[in-house]
């Protein structure tokens, strides 16, 4: 059964007691009494299956309104706070930030606990079985590019995490909602008028944030990994002419390692996994200002030569 198949009222009830969501590589247990958050979970995760694995979750995220001193926060300037098992990595925030907090919390869980993978802060998309990896620092336009391509024939693997399986170097999909910031929100609304976006939340520490529901087909294929083919480091620059520049392998290696959450902590396994990825990929820097250019240029990249 999928999230969207459960009625709104029933889903809110189940979220109050904890709902196990099968997001692909991880089962996430979300527990929240916040009705507005339940509604957004229902919309953003509509196509995800409920987990039927018998109650074993990988991440446990509780989002609630903290009572505050004397319980005053229940009535005045309500907040939302997250509890991840015994960890509380974030300060409580205004209640309307519950949706981004939930998403950041799930990311935090993966980044700190999923060392069975080599993890890169990158968007990943796939076409014809081969993957495009877009590593990026905040503000580089990674998520905009990701949402743009995901609505023009590319399959979304992930917006935030390239999860590389050390054994064979395959990229594991984790097609969760795509996080858009500020002007990107309107860019994607125009680019993909049919896509569902959550209500924009202003004044977060990343500015205004909204999340895009991942395409249903990407969610349906969440168990199909892909082999990496192209490594593209994007930079958004207003008004710039599009330019795709090849990056030498050694330099690409270190730039990739720089974007990794856990390259150093995996020791030799991290080194071998990234080396294999670099060997099998063509790497580029990509400066762009318009999604049309990006779609055309990135879409025309030839497959890298097979390695012996």
């Amino acid at each position, binding site marked *: 059964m999928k999230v969207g198949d459960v009625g709104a009222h029933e889903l809110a009830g189940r979220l109050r007691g904890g709902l196990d969501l099968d997001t692909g590589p991880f089962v996430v247990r979300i527990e929240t009494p916040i009705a507005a958050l339940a509604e957004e979970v229902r919309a953003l995760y509509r196509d995800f299956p409920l987990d039927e694995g018998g*109650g*074993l*979750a990988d991440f446990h995220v509780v989002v609630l309104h903290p009572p505050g001193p004397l319980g005053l926060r229940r009535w005045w300037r309500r907040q939302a706070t997250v509890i991840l098992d015994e960890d509380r990595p974030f300060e409580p925030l205004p209640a309307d930030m519950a949706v981004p907090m939930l998403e950041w919390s799930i990311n935090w869980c993966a980044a700190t606990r999923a060392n069975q993978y080599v993890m890169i802060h990158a968007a990943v998309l796939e076409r014809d079985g081969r993957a495009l990896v877009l590593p990026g620092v905040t503000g580089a336009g990674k998520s905009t590019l990701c949402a743009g391509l995901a609505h023009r024939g590319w399959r979304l693997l992930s917006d935030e995490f390239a999860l590389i399986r050390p054994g064979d170097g395959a990229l594991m999909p984790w097609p969760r909602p795509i996080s858009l910031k500020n002007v990107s929100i309107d860019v994607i609304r125009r680019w993909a008028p049919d896509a569902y976006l959550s209500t924009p939340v202003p004044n977060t520490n990343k500015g205004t944030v909204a999340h895009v529901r991942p395409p249903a087909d990407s969610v349906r294929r969440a168990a199909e990994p892909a082999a990496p083919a192209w490594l593209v480091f994007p930079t958004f620059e207003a008004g710039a002419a599009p330019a795709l520049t090849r990056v030498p392998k050694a330099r690409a290696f270190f730039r990739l390692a720089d974007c990794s959450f856990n390259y150093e*902590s995996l020791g030799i396994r991290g080194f071998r996994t990234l080396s294999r990825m670099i060997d099998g990929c063509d790497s580029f820097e990509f400066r762009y200002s318009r999604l049309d250019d990006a779609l055309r240029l990135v879409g025309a990249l030839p497959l890298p030569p097979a390695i012996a």
Partner: protein
Amino acid sequence: MRDGGTLLRLLRDPGAMPALAPAEWDVVLRQARHASLLARLEALAESAGLLATLPSRVRARLESARANVDQQHRLIRWEVTRIRRALRDLDVPLVLLKGAAYLHAELPAARGRQFNDVDILVPVERLRDVEAALLRAGWESTGMSAYDERYYREWSHELPPLVHKDRQIVLDVHHNILPPTGRLRPDPRRLLEAARPLGESGLRVLAPADMTLHCACHLFQSGELHKSLRDLSDLDALVRGFAAAPFWAELTARARVLDVERPLYYGLRFARRLLGTPVAPDVEPALARMAPPPPVRAAMDALVGLAIEPDHPTRPRRRIGLARRLLSVRHHWLRMPPLMLARHLTHKALARGRDTG
């Protein structure tokens, strides 16, 4: 008596892992993580050849914990080389304690042992030299209050924690294994004399019996009860690893010499009850002589049984909280004389008041 929940059952009998239901794993993996025992579960499963039989989600979680611990061990090994280099001109014996010792002596207790600090023991008369050499080499104080600093220097068995300015691993420099203000007074010279060199490395570790006693001293004596189960699991691994013939006789004899018979008694009692640690039958009479009066023993049984397991929603929170508070009172009581304790607790209460007020 065999009590406790699923986590204790798995530590006693890893063979029970394959039969666990997913919902049981959900609880036990969270408890193990909380108790810093996730990687130890991985080590137990691996030794028993069970990893392949476990559900893939469980395997992935254990694999991740293993990767974390492997990294910690790499960092600790590196840190120890830096400490050795910083102290090389001092001609001071460098004795590793606890996790760093298990790791460098390649003991089974190192398997899956999670830690991110290094503990060393040096002769008390060389403490100033050692501290000065470390400060020259880039270690710094972790920035505590003047009161805490004084507490460490006057009333504790270690220097205030140090950390190197370029790295994150905490270094605790001990001159004894228990505080000088406490009821039990082991003589650190005896520990240093009996310490064993590790090959040509210039490093030493405590003799097997002393290492085991140090581990037992840590149980319920340290203020960190949430780490007690990890310590008990260490004790279990040490005893199982050392259990060759002379060990048991040495253990009870050294407990007497070092004045730590009661910690040994409790350590073995709870290791046996909770983790099924094998104890040689011929030391039973010696252990029986170390026992506290029956009412005390009964109270400790009840408190430790409740306090040692990590929390989860199905456990009685209030009773556990009370048990932990009582054990903490006991810990303080054993650590310093009544007047000093009263002063210390008053200061801490006032400091807390200032922080929150």
